[in-house]
C-alpha cells in the first residue's frame, strides 16, 4: 500500500525476532561467564528489556516531571513552590480538584453499587450471560466513542423546539422542560453527568469481578441460612456482603485510579468548559495549550500524589497475597 505497510510488517516480524534473538544471545554470552556467576547474571539479562522500557517511559520521566514542577514556564528557572501556590490559589484549579474528588466518589459509588446489584440479580436468572454481556460491552469501546454516544443522550435544544437528545426527549414526554445537561454548573451537576458516562462503561468491570467472587461463595452456606429461615435480604446483608467485602475493596481501588486518570470523556464532551475540568485534563491544557510546563508538571505531580495512597493499598494487599502463596 505505502511505506507504512513495509515499516509495520518489519516491526511485527522484526521486533519479536530481535527480542527472541536477544534471549538466545544471552545464553551464548553466558557461556563465557564463570559457572557460579551464570545463574546470578541470567535473570538480569532477561529483565533488561523490560527494565529499560520502565526506566525510559515511567521512572525517569516521572523524576524529571517532579523536578520540572519546581521550575517556571521557562525550563531551568527554579521557582520553588510557586507552581503549587498557583494551583491552590487559583479558583479554576480548585474547581478541577473538587471535580476530581467528585469523580472518585461518584464513579466508585455508581460502578460498585450497580455492579454489585447486577451481579447479585443475574445470578438468579437463566439469561445471565446475555445480561452480563449487555452491561459489560461498553468497556470494550473507546471513551471517545462513549462520549459521542452520550452527546446524543445529553443533547439539548432550546425550549419550544423539538428535542433531539434522548434524555430531553423523555423529559418533554412528561411535559418537563429541556435541561442543558452539560452546562448545569450548580453543585457540579454536569460533572456528575460526565461521571454517568464513565459509570456506563465501567459498571461491567465491577460486575464481572463481583460476579466471579459471588460464584465462589459456597451454595451450601447460603442454603443453610435459607433453611434456618433467613430472608433473601438477610442472606445478602449478613453472609454475601461481608464475604464480598475484600473483592469490593479490590474493585474500588481500580475504580478510584480510573476516576483520577479520566481525561478522554471530559476532553471530548465539554473540553473542560462549564466548570467540568479535572486535574488530568487541566494538566494537558496548561501544558500543551497554554504551554506552561511548570504548571503542567505541578498538576501531574498533584495527580501522582493523589494516587500514591491507593498504590500503597495495592502493594500492601499484594504482599499479603504473596505471603499466602
Amino acid at each position, binding site marked *: 500500500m505505502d511505506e*507504512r505497510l513495509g515499516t*509495520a510488517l518489519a*516491526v*511485527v516480524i522484526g*521486533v519479536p525476532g530481535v*527480542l*527472541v534473538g536477544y*534471549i538466545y544471545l*544471552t*545464553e551464548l554470552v553466558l557461556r563465557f561467564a564463570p559457572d557460579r556467576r551464570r545463574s546470578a547474571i*541470567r*535473570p538480569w539479562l*532477561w529483565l533488561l*528489556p523490560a527494565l529499560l*522500557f*520502565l526506566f*525510559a*517511559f*515511567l*521512572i525517569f*520521566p*516521572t523524576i*524529571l*516531571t517532579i523536578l520540572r514542577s519546581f521550575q517556571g514556564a521557562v525550563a531551568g528557572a527554579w521557582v520553588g513552590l510557586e507552581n503549587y501556590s498557583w494551583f491552590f490559589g487559583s479558583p479554576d484549579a480548585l474547581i478541577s480538584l473538587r471535580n476530581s474528588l467528585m469523580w472518585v466518589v461518584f464513579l466508585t459509588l455508581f460502578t460498585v453499587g*450497580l455492579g454489585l446489584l*447486577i451481579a447479585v*440479580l443475574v445470578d*438468579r*436468572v437463566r439469561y445471565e450471560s446475555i445480561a452480563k454481556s449487555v452491561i*459489560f460491552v461498553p468497556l470494550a*469501546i*473507546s*471513551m471517545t*466513542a462513549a*462520549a*459521542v*454516544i452520550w*452527546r*446524543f*443522550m445529553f443533547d439539548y435544544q432550546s425550549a419550544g423546539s423539538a428535542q*433531539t437528545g*434522548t434524555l430531553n426527549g423523555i423529559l418533554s414526554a412528561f411535559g418537563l422542560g429541556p435541561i442543558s445537561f452539560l452546562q448545569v454548573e450548580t453543585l457540579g451537576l454536569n460533572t456528575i453527568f460526565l461521571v454517568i458516562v464513565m459509570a456506563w462503561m465501567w459498571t461491567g468491570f465491577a460486575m464481572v469481578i463481583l460476579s466471579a467472587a459471588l460464584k465462589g461463595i459456597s451454595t451450601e452456606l447460603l442454603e443453610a441460612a435459607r433453611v*434456618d*429461615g433467613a*430472608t433473601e435480604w438477610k442472606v445478602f446483608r449478613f453472609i454475601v456482603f461481608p464475604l464480598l467485602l475484600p*473483592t469490593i475493596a*479490590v474493585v474500588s481501588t481500580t475504580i478510584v485510579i480510573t476516576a483520577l486518570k479520566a481525561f*478522554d470523556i471530559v476532553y471530548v464532551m465539554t*473540553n473542560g468548559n462549564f466548570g467540568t475540568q479535572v486535574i488530568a485534563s487541566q*494538566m*494537558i491544557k496548561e*501544558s*500543551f495549550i497554554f504551554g506552561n*510546563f511548570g504548571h503542567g508538571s505541578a498538576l*501531574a505531580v498533584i*495527580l501522582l500524589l493523589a494516587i500514591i495512597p491507593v*498504590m500503597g493499598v*495495592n*502493594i500492601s494487599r*499484594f504482599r499479603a497475597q504473596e505471603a499466602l502463596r
Partner: protein
Amino acid sequence: MTATPAIVQIPAERTSTGRLRRTAGRYGVHVVLAVLMIVWLLPTIGLLVNSLRNSSDIATSGWWTSLFPPKGLTLDSYAAVFSETDIASGFINSLFITIPATIIPIFVAAFAAYAFSWMNFPGRNLLFVAVVGLLVVPLQTTFIPILQVFGNLGIAGQFLSVWLAHTGYGLPFAIYLLRNFMGSLPKEVFESAYIDGASPVTAFFRLALPMTIPAIAALAIFQFLFVWNDLLVAYIYLGAVRPENLPMTVQISNLVSSQGAGWELLGPAAFISMALPLAVFFALQRYFVRGITGGAVKG
C-alpha cells in the same frame, strides 16, 4: 430470629404476605434487569439510529421519531464520512499503531515474567513490588519529558514514538498478569526439565510460553483494546507534529470540537471505530473476562 426456639416458626412463604413478597421478588428481578439492560442499550441504539438518518433530520427531531414506523433511514452518512473525512486513513493508522504496540510488550513482559517466576536473584520480590507500584503512575507525569526526548531524537510524530511509549506504559500490567499466571504453573515441570538438561531458554520457549497462552491471549486483548481506544497518548505524541498519522479516536474528537460541521458524521465515525473492538470482544469475551478477573481478583 427470636429468643424462643421452642415455638415453631411459620416459614415466610406459607403466609399470604410472604407469598406476595416472593412473587414480587421473582418478577422484580426480571423487571429490574430488563430496565437496566434497556438503560444500557438505549444510548448506543440512539446513536445507531441517528447514524442512519440524514443531517437535517438529526438536527430537527429525535432519533426515536424515525423508528415507528422506520422512515428516512439511509447509509448516506456512512458514505459521507469516507468521502469528507480522513477516517479511512485513520482506521489504517489505528491498525498501524495498535498491532506493533500490542506485540512488542507481550514479548518483553514474557521474558521479565519468566525471570520473576522461575529465576532466583537478590531483590526479586522488591523489584516486582516496584513494578506493581508502577501500574498506577498517571501517564500525565511522563508526557513533558518524553515529548522532549522524542523531539531530540527526531521521532516525534512518527509511529515509532507511540509504539515505544505504549510498550512502556503497558508493561507493568503485562508483567503483573503474566507473572501471576507463570508463577502458578507447577514447579515440577521446570525442575524435571532442568534435570533433563534443558537450558532456561528451552524451558521458556518449550514449556513456560505454551502453558501461558491463555494469559497471553487475555493480555493481547487488553493491550489491543487499550491502544486502539487510546486518545491521549496519540494526541500528545502524534497530534501536534504529524496530524496525518492520527488514529481514529483523535480524528473523532476533532470532529466533535468542530461544532456544527459534520454532526451527522459523528455517529458513523464512532461506529466504524467501535467495529473492531466489538468484534474482538464478542469473539474472545471468555479471555477478556479471564484477564479482568485474573488481573484483579487472583492478584
